């Protein structure tokens, strides 16, 4: 095999109308996905910008309106959010299902954190084309169409035996043609991606990693197509076999796996968390303050001796029962989260049988748009909410007179910067 072989075969293959059309389709679709993905991510950034402005205006107004730590803590919302990573344009992931923005205040967190500001469910049902979809689902189909009749078409044209005997080496015919088509498809798909990376400021390491992962994925499907194409059946039968394999691994195994996993892992219903928290918080109104305070002191012993109340309503008691309500619901919330994590982990094993799902998990992992990234954000919100409590408790329990200056030290949510790994 030499350079002349490569050039001759490349020119021959690319001159075929069907091949050129398929490559063009791949290029157009990849471009469309990169374009709409970039618009989507830009909209997410703009939303965050607007929220930040609105949030600070709102907080300013609340701060001027109230002059008491209790009221301030009650009425002040704090924006928490997870900005999309530069790579998010290529893997939109589950950000349309899991929340990535909240406004929390010092009330019981379990009542706030499960709210999701979900976009249009009917669009979510149709799904979106992102680069991940183009690669994981669509590119194997293109490969199947490009490669299944590699030999069958030559056989049908009567050139097969002639080509085989005149080939310079064994590799300079079928493997070479397979490789050329695969690389051509890779280029058609990756060029729009590279443009998207430049626009979105993706780091060079990520660009290389993703390009390499995509190449490996195409290589995997090319090898399968190559092996199947060797069988001496007519082209439609070969394509049916390949399509069957694609259908099975891409759609059927994941769908059946999901049914199995749902049956295998049961956790608490989400609604039960809210119910438990609500009961705990509401019952506290009818309980003697001491009962709430005793429960509170178990986790906050540093306020021992400062929990007496003189009125039937005091803010420190109010926030203490919010805390106690959260603590009551916490085991359920942990179990709920555990179920989600168990299911996601089990899905990882099923993904081993589904290359498309495996690729999607890998890309969304790199783009921080998968379920674990969403959980990480939820943990951040929990940590921030805990900081807020740590900030207000001394004022409430020590009975410190209000001073607006002290609010300067109030915790501020710092989003996780997804710029590099």
């Amino acid at each position, binding site marked *: 095999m030499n350079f002349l072989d490569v050039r001759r075969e490349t020119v021959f293959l690319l001159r075929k109308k069907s091949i050129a059309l398929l490559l063009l389709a791949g290029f157009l679709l990849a471009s469309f996905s990169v374009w709409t993905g970039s618009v989507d991510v830009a909209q997410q950034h703009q939303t965050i910008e607007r929220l930040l402005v*609105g949030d600070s205006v709102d907080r300013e107004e609340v701060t001027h309106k109230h002059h008491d730590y209790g009221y301030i803590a009650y009425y002040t919302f704090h924006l928490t959010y997870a900005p999309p990573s530069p790579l998010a344009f290529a893997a939109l992931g589950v950000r349309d299902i899991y929340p990535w923005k909240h406004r929390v205040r010092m009330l019981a967190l379990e009542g706030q954190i499960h709210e999701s500001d979900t*976009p249009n469910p009917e669009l979510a049902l149709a799904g979106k084309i992102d680069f991940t979809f183009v690669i994981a689902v*669509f590119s194997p189909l293109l490969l199947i169409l490009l490669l299944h009749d590699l030999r069958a078409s030559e056989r049908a044209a009567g050139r097969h035996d002639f080509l085989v005997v005149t080939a310079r080496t064994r590799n300079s015919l079928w493997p070479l043609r397979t490789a050329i088509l695969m690389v051509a498809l890779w280029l058609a798909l990756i060029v729009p991606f590279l443009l998207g990376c430049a626009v979105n400021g993706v780091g060079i390491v990520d660009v290389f990693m993703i390009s390499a992962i995509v190449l490996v994925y195409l290589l995997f499907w090319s090898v399968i197509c190559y092996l199947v194409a060797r069988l001496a059946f007519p082209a439609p039968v070969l394509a049916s076999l390949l399509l069957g394999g694609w259908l099975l691994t891409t759609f059927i195994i994941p769908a059946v796996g999901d049914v199995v996993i*749902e049956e295998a892992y049961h956790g608490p219903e989400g609604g039960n968390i809210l119910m438990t928290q609500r009961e705990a918080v509401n019952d506290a109104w009818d309980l003697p303050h001491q009962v709430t305070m005793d429960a509170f002191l178990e986790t906050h012993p540093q306020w021992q001796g400062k929990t007496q109340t003189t009125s039937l309503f005091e803010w420190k008691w109010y926030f203490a029962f919010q805390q106690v309500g959260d603590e009551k619901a916490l085991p359920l919330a942990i179990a709920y989260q555990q179920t989600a994590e168990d299911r996601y982990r089990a899905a990882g094993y099923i993904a081993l049988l589904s290359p498309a799902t495996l690729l999607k998990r890998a890309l969304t992992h790199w783009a921080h748009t998968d379920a674990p990234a969403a959980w990480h954000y939820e943990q951040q919100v929990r940590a921030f909410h805990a900081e807020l409590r740590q900030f207000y408790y001394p004022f409430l329990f020590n009975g410190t007179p209000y001073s607006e200056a002290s609010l300067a030290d109030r915790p501020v949510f710092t989003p996780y910067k997804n710029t590099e790994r």
Partner: protein
Amino acid sequence: MSNTVLTVARDEWRYWQRSRLAQSVVILAFLLAIASVWVTHTSVSHSIDQRQHQQAESEAVFEAQPDRHPHRMVHYGHYLFRSPPPLGSLDPGIDAFTGNAIFLEGHRQNGATFADRKQASGLTWLAKLTPAFVMQVLTPLLMIVIGFGVMTREREAGTLEFLKVQGVSPFVMLAGKGIALAGAGMLILLPLFLGVCLTLLDGAAVVPALAFLASYVIYMAVWIGIVLLVSTLASSNSSSFGSLVVVWIALCLIVPRIASNTAGVLVHSPGKLETDFAVLKQLREMGDGHNANDPAFKALKDNLLAKYKVDSVEALPINFRGIVAQQSEADLTKVLNDFAEQQMTQQADQAAIARQFGWLSPMIAIQNASMKLAGTDLENYHRFLREAENVRFDFVQSLNKLHAEGMTLEQDANKYKSQAAKKAATVSADNWQILNDFHFTPLPPTQRFANSLLAMTQLVISLAVVFGVIFYAGRRV
């Protein structure tokens, strides 16, 4: 003539019986259809039971609350659960993407929480094993695999010319092949037919259920037409197969997602969080209903004083705080509803754009027809949200009425002074029987049928176009 048609069909069936590929495809499709109907029906029936149970429990818990200050019950709140409609067990539609419980309380419109998707394995990113998905996406591909060669095979084998010479017109051929494909299609649709019978037993309305079935029959006919057409036009088995797969990829995988991307980019729908700012701002201007001394309520106060001809709120025969609570809830609800309607309109606009793509892809058309007839589409979800808001407003206002009439302003103002004063500012638990049994029902059957007409028209026109072209192409065979 009709005998010849049947002979052609029978011959095609005999060919499939000898072909292992065709056999395995039909068996696979049939099994998938049965499995999807069984799995989805089981899981949807389970969640119907569960949500109805949760709904009953939620009402019982509310009504079992002890004597309390009514405003406490406003914040205690109430839960509503949405049960899927009977046909939802064949097409769950957007059910997995929307929250299925909603918490109702004073001064706030909460979104529906806990969509099933949040606890899912993540494996269903492409599809869930539902009858809708199997029928809409998978069966067309399987029809292609068994049918791509119906005409090209005869052409490649040279039998087409032979038959023509014998006086078999191309239309008779096409009709026979069409009947053969329709037979396979009906076999694959059989589990869906049984599923529809099951939902009728579960209480599904007859008209939407029949239309539901009919829409899938038309959809199947469109695909049979596409297969016949491409096989007629193509010169060889390979090109027929390749073109059909390209058509399937475009219609079932690509166009629906292009529709969704396009709708999302064309109509921007800001989330609830953003509109909340505007609500909070208006709220501050309207005054906080917890604070009867808020200057915003001065006009209300002056009106009441004039009406009852007294000169202080203490002298009013009703509790001024309760009146303020009622008034501010009503004002606030107006604002909240404005924003909620705005958001629903944006979502409906997005959906309307996506649905127009049904003219291009029968898959989008069947998806919409099916969801609309099943009552699991966006309109029905919005209906749930609106009904929930009505329930919320009614129960909050009846509690606020108790707040105004069940105690004096003095009792209310002093409720934190002592245990006895607190007790004086409560109303009896007998008053908590204000909830009606909530049971979400989708739009009435005729309305659902009417809503599906656009999608149905798209399907019928696709069918007409495909068969029109076949008629044209048939003359030139």
